[in-house]
């Protein structure tokens, strides 16, 4: 299977270790991963903030970079959902480009978030990871309600050796990130994050993991500001860790 890694602009720029972890993980499972260097951004921030026209070049760029791959894997369920749900809307609507719309229709359905790619496409839950820590999992909104990952991440975590998985109270409540919402509505965003942090503290986890670095950046920023001693980690990094174990 020809797998293309869509690392996302945020992970590429600020959290490269997540990208490295996806490569490690997929290679460990016997797959070749390619990173098309022409990729940049899916355009979600622009689209979600009301800058549709500005997002169109990103739709073109994404389509061009990933045409030809059987599977496109990304460590962001949110960006995967952007491509799957809204690239067709932008190609047909904003761009009014029928040829682009046809190409998007080919590429978009091949985009998978890491967790469901592992459990659904590759059919694995035990990825040979070892992570001897107490971990809780935050189901990010777009992974839950747009990509419908269900319990795939939990099944993956349960098969990690040494890992103690603890429940997160009110897990399915939004952490308050919401892209530019975090800056445009900082008070409500911070109030939502405060409740998420309280739930994480209640879980007594030492690590909180999720399938999106954007939400983790938000939650982690608050955990760090409050000196909670709880750290955030992308699901991919836990799954890639300690393969000797």
């Amino acid at each position, binding site marked *: 299977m020809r797998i*293309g*890694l869509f*690392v996302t602009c945020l992970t*590429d*720029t*600020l*959290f*490269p*270790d997540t*990208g*490295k*972890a996806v490569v*490690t993980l997929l*290679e*460990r499972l*016997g797959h*070749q991963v*390619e*990173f*098309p*260097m022409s*990729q940049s*951004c899916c*355009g979600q*921030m*622009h689209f979600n903030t*009301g*800058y549709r026209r*500005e997002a169109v*070049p*990103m739709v073109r*760029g994404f389509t*061009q970079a990933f045409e030809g791959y059987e599977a496109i894997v990304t460590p962001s369920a949110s960006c995967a959902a952007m491509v799957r749900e*809204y690239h067709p809307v932008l190609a047909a609507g904003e761009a009014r480009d029928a040829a682009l719309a046809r190409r998007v229709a080919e590429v978009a359905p091949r985009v998978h978030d890491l967790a469901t790619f592992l459990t659904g496409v590759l059919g694995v839950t035990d990825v040979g990871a070892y992570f001897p820590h107490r971990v809780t999992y935050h189901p990010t*909104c777009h992974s839950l*309600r747009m990509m419908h990952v269900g319990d795939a991440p939990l099944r993956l975590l349960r098969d990690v050796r040494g890992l103690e998985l603890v429940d997160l109270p009110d897990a*399915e409540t*939004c952490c*308050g990130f919401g892209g530019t*919402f975090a*800056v445009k*509505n*900082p*008070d*409500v965003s*911070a109030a*939502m994050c405060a409740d998420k942090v309280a739930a994480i503290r209640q879980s007594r986890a030492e690590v909180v993991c999720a399938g999106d670095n954007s939400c983790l950046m*938000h939650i*982690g920023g*608050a955990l*760090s500001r409050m000196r909670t001693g709880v*750290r*955030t980690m*992308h699901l991919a*990094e836990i799954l*890639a*860790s*300690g*393969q*000797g174990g």
Partner: protein
Amino acid sequence: MTRVTGTPTPTGAMPTYLGMPAFPDAARKAVANSQLRRNLTHATTAIRTKRAKAVAELDDWEALRQAGKAIKDHTLANLGTYLTRLEENVTKAGGHVHWARDAAEANAIVIELVKRSGARKVVKVKSMATQETGLNEALAEGGISAIETDLAELIVQLGDDLPSHILVPAIHRNRAEIGDLFRRTMPDAPADLTDDPPRLAGAARAHLRSEFLSAAVGICGANFAVADTGSLVVVESEGNGRMCLTLPKTLICVAGVEKVLPAWRDLEVFLALLPRSSTAERMNPYTTIWSGVTPGDGPESFHLVLLDNGRTATLADETGRQALRCIRCSACLNVCPVYERAGGHAYGSPYPGPIGAILSPQLRGVTSPADASLPFASSLCGACYEVCPVAINIPEALVYLRARSVESKKRYPERAVFKLSAYLLSDARRLAAAQRAVAASRHVAGRGGRIRRLPPPLSGWTDTRDAPAPPRESFRAWWARTRGSAPAAGRAGQPPGVGADAPAAGPASQSAPGVGSDATDAGTGAAG
């Protein structure tokens, strides 16, 4: 004055949504109000838990939901046909139909009808349409007092307050606050009235009884209007609606044009969807359905005011029109994490919460700061869409309205920022260059590799959250360095990446162990 009692208001002015601040400013005050936060969290948590249970009882919930959506979409696509049919059949049954283009027309029609009846006082069933038109204020100006008879709406009225929830307008008040209010403003409240909910309800019941018996005019909204039979439907829990709909001689119903349903059988779907979504009940306690007038039984004269007030303009919009499917159940408010923390008043409209954020800017336009800010008052978490009984894709409508809001602004400094970032992000070379610049700014991070303060507007982030320090090397730079492709050299057609060239890439790939240990450390890096 619409007040039930003689207690004067301090300012003499009626509460209004006009001139409300933008959502972020209104919300800032609300999130700091600990009593409000506690009241809202308590109430919304209870009701959303109950709703989930009530919905889970039905195996065919999703089918019902899709049926509700399909019926509404069909009706909206043929709205003219069904409204004409409704008018014919209401008229045939002895009712009178009036058409109102906007709030002012609707209010003028109602005032004229009340004046013609000779009444100076009306009793009201809780109605969103008349909240939308500001009917009570208009009636007061016309010298007519309106008495709200829904318990929560009465609480709002007695407190000179504004509703903050579609179903439970006084959700922001707890029983202690309500007890205080009743003892202070209700002249016939028992001297020993406690905060016990049954006793509070009893006091309101006794207080309202005389109003029901003496009112000559009742005013209501409608949950549904059946075109085929000319029937109006009001769904309620307290029985106050039944009183208002049957006792007065004159009944006036103000209903949005989108309330029409084609046929009687369509009620089967909506009378299952609405109570479970709204009050988490299998069936609501009182459903009143009437067609025109029946001599010797109920009102002698019935008037239906069909209200447009921005609805046909909304209908013309392909993406925005789905908001007109709304049956005002308020399930989206009860699951919304933003509503739960900001409260209903922050939305500056009788329609708060997620549905309000897509409805108000469409019905009223985006000219006021409050309306322009509403489409942005969401983290796009999608919980609202998940529970909506008519499958309104609220997140989709929100991002669509954000685009309309951005386009409608002439001078907007933010646009330059987004144009620049789009320029950088739409091309791999430019992104790589930007990443090198970001990496060079690593030194601004404090100890522990976290950034604690950034300039506005990013200070909105760092006021409460640390920002991650940029890594030494971006992912693409790492890939280019370790996997041998020039940075940002990608062009379509060129063999993407070098996965195929990687030495015997496989489970024991050479680079894997090193990467693995990096990855473990990465967590620490990401979390600080």
